[in-house]
């Protein structure tokens, strides 16, 4: 029984504005094991993005516990969570979130530059080139994000997410800003990565893409409605 990468216990998230309380998430129980491919889907407003933010340590739960590789997140400082995001988590966003002022190469190298242990320039080049090669974008290293199409930008975002060799890729609506052809390509890239061992958690409301995952979680009104699983590692 290996330690799950992410383990969520009785997690809840409440947003409060003045005298209004909104329960975005309630009683979430979830575990993600090494090598899994999980999709989280549900209608807009169901809380799936909030869940992903919390699992990615971008946000904090109001109640319940989150363990990342066995570590209780509530015990960590902001600096420590930043370090975990940097080393262990790769993010892919709907809007790509590349930094327009940096070249493609520098965008991808960024996580390495934020790392606690500095990486030598040579090593950085090796890793960046490798990741660019994985997503088939080696030729674009010198360009700027604004010079690429949406599909290409998302590929770069994937390369950036991969560069620090994270434990898990958290993917939020990766196809939201792409046409169907590009979307299919991105999803295929992600699937290929999973086949090579990358752990994936994808949030999408697109049923077609949700179905591609090996395990599917459905959310409605902040609660898990149901799960299907195709693996045998589950504790449930």
């Amino acid at each position, binding site marked *: 029984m290996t330690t799950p990468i992410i383990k969520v216990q009785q997690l809840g998230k409440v947003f409060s504005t003045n005298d209004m309380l909104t329960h975005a998430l309630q009683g979430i129980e979830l575990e993600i094991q090494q090598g899994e491919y999980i999709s989280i889907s549900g209608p807009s407003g169901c809380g799936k993005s909030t869940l992903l*933010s919390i699992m*990615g*340590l*971008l*946000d*904090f739960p109001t109640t319940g516990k989150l363990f990342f590789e066995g570590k209780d997140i509530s015990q960590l400082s*902001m*600096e420590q969570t*930043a*370090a*975990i*995001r*940097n*080393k262990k*988590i790769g*993010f892919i*966003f*709907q*809007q790509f*979130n*590349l*930094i*327009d002022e940096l070249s493609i190469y520098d965008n991808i190298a*960024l*996580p390495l530059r*934020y*790392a606690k242990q500095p990486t030598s320039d040579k090593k950085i080049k090796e890793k960046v080139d490798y990741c660019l090669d994985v997503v088939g974008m080696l030729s674009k290293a010198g360009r700027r994000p604004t010079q690429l199409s949406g599909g290409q930008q998302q590929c770069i975002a994937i390369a*950036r*997410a991969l560069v*620090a060799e994270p434990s898990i890729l958290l993917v939020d609506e990766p196809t*939201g800003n792409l046409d169907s052809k590009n979307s299919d390509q991105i999803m295929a890239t992600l699937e290929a990565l999973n086949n090579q061992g990358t752990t994936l958690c994808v949030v999408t409301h697109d049923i077609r893409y949700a179905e591609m995952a090996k395990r599917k979680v459905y959310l409605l009104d902040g609660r898990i409605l149901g799960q299907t699983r195709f693996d045998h590692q589950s504790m449930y």
Partner: protein
Amino acid sequence: MRILIRQHKQAWASLKKKPGFVLTVLMTMGITLGALLCAITLNYLLLVEPLPYPDQDRLFVAEHGVTGAKKETKGLAFTYPGLVHLYKSKAAFEQAAIMSYGEDVIVSHNSQPLVNTAYITPELHQILASPLALGRMFEASEAMDTHNPVAMLSYNTWQQEFNGNVDILEQKINIRGVSYRIVGVLAEHFIEPELEEIGRETQVWLPFDFNSAGEGQRQSFGNISGNLKFIGLLNKEVSQSQAVQLLTPLVNDRWQEGVAEISFFKGWSIDMRVRPVKEVMLGQSESIAIMLLAGVVGLVLIACANISNLFMARTAEKQRQMAIQAAIGATKKHLFKAMLAETSILMFMSIILALVIAKSGFYIMQQYLGAVLPRVNELSLNPITFGCAVLVTVVFALFFAKLSTRMINYRALNTTLQSSGKGSGLQVSKKTRQVLIASQVALATVLVFANFSLLKDAVKTINAPLGFTTTNISTLRLNFSSTDSPSQEESIPIMAGIMEKLEALPQVESLSQSGSPLDGFYLRALTNVANNERYTPFLKGADQRYFNMIEQPLLQGDNFTRVDRQDGNNVMIVNQAFAKQLKADGDVLGLQLSMGGPDPHKIIGIVKDIAIPGETAIEDDGSAEYTGVPRAYVASRLGAQTFMLKLKSGQSVSREQLGKLLAEVDSRYAVFSFNSADDILTQRLFSEITTAVTTAVLAGLVFLLAGIGLYGILSYGTQLRRFELGARMAIGATKQHLVTMIINDNAKSVLVGFIGSVVLFALAYIGLSEYIQPFLTWQVLPMIVATLILITLVTLFACYWPLRKYINKPAIFSLRGSD
């Protein structure tokens, strides 16, 4: 109208949520605009507003220019008979008055106050059409040569010295042995033309005949006096230059006649000058006023740039709200109007504060700058001030509203509405921001440094050790209130009596029959008998207790003795500086110095140097090292009428008490002045203290403004980068990474700003080298470092503060579109 009210209500509601923003705008604009209104009103008053006298455009002052043999101006003052001659000739002027200023003690008054007096001919108040509170002005029966002893009081004198007594008319006052009948009191709103000295208010007006000029001076064409003035209403058909041409031969011919016997004046002549009263009153103040206005305008511009940045930052904050309004049909004009509602509320509040500040500014100027600027008593919030206030409010409100709405990229606004939109409806290019930061830093550095330098200089002067004590010491000068003065012999026993009484006072610890060093020295030519070398040290009479009392140490030799003074021994004590001048090794005891008389003075002692603030060494060799002012002391006479009193600590003696004491000994003596040395010292340091306070306040203000400005720019710069910050945080950037990044990104602009300030200094150096050169020593290095550190600190703060709300919250806050 309804919409206008509603818009203002909404704007107010929205502003209430941002008290920091409102307060910053309010304080910055309120203070700077207050200063601006002050400066504008002052300039208007001095440069535009006519004097409050009828026919003021024909009101001129005639001056007596004494020109030496080489056509050089020797002085700008009348001789007594010259003035009387001009007055009696009645040339060029329709009506003219002559006057002589003085200082006298009202002996008959209980408190024997020292008052400013003016001895005038009756025409003066007729020309000025002076308003009266009581009685009448002088009339023909009190004209020159009538010797009719009457007096007029100023309103303040009436109120303060006579408690506003309604029965003041026909009462008598005694000044210098003459009893004057009070015939009139000037009205409170009478404004005196300050011809002699800015800020001097004449308290008692007396007929010209009774002026203090001695019989000799009244006849002498070789004796000029700055106290004598001529003012008149020029004939309608006579121009200013015609008047000069008319008066010069008239006065010169009579003068040549008068000095024909004196060979000293061979080749000299008189040329008359005729200047408008306004010009005379203004003197150097015009440039002071304009400089003040220029300075304040500069301050307003800096403030304006800063507040612009703040408004831009605010627009950045409000973009989502504006996008919503645009989506439901608000045009650019609507957004502009909404913004205008906000800016006009802010500017209205600022201008109210500005008016309050201007009003206090007037008060401060009247209290403290009365001696520097003329006519300050006329300063008040007038239509010009209010007009400017309205104009400034409207212009700035429109300007800030326009500026804020200009940066909205109307087309891109809708992207902010889409919940996950990354777009930004704002446009301030990175370049613009960098230029703004750089110029802000450059200006702030220059101004802070300049203020620091001035401040340091002023503080240095204020804190410079005097070399003597002023604690509990006061100077008493006597007034002899009779027409014929006593002889030296006659006064010795009287003074002895007075001193006996003074020493008997329980409050008095010790007494010296000499003036305080702060009361002044006089220049005296001395000749070293040994080698005929000439020296001009500052000289002062001192008695045997003088040095002890002020705690000025005697380094070598002996002090004066009572015997020295009694016998009139020609002995002298010199200070180190003079000793060094006389002999390089400073060993000058026994040296003989001649004052021109048959018996030279012998040096018997050497005292330590003292420093009197505001007095600089007159070094003829111009040697760079300041060695101190050369001083010499001679034994004061036993009949001297100036005393220093050292009081027991916590004790005081009133002027009235001293007056009574004097009257007991000899009723002809009254107190002329009784001032504490500390007060004199403060007065002497007035300009340094003013400079210190002003520069400290200015440095603080500039610093604050720079901080606000930098904060403004960096704040919206950071807001524009919000999504980028979020993305960086998502991939693991820590707080430190982001702070370092923002600082690095701005470091270049700040550096450019620093270089810019050096360039500004270089330009200033080229343009004003003579003024700046003395400041340029290695001593400015710590100041430069201090300035740079301060500006850097403020920049760092401005970098961090806007960033804090993003980096101290979970990353998702920055990644989401709306708060």
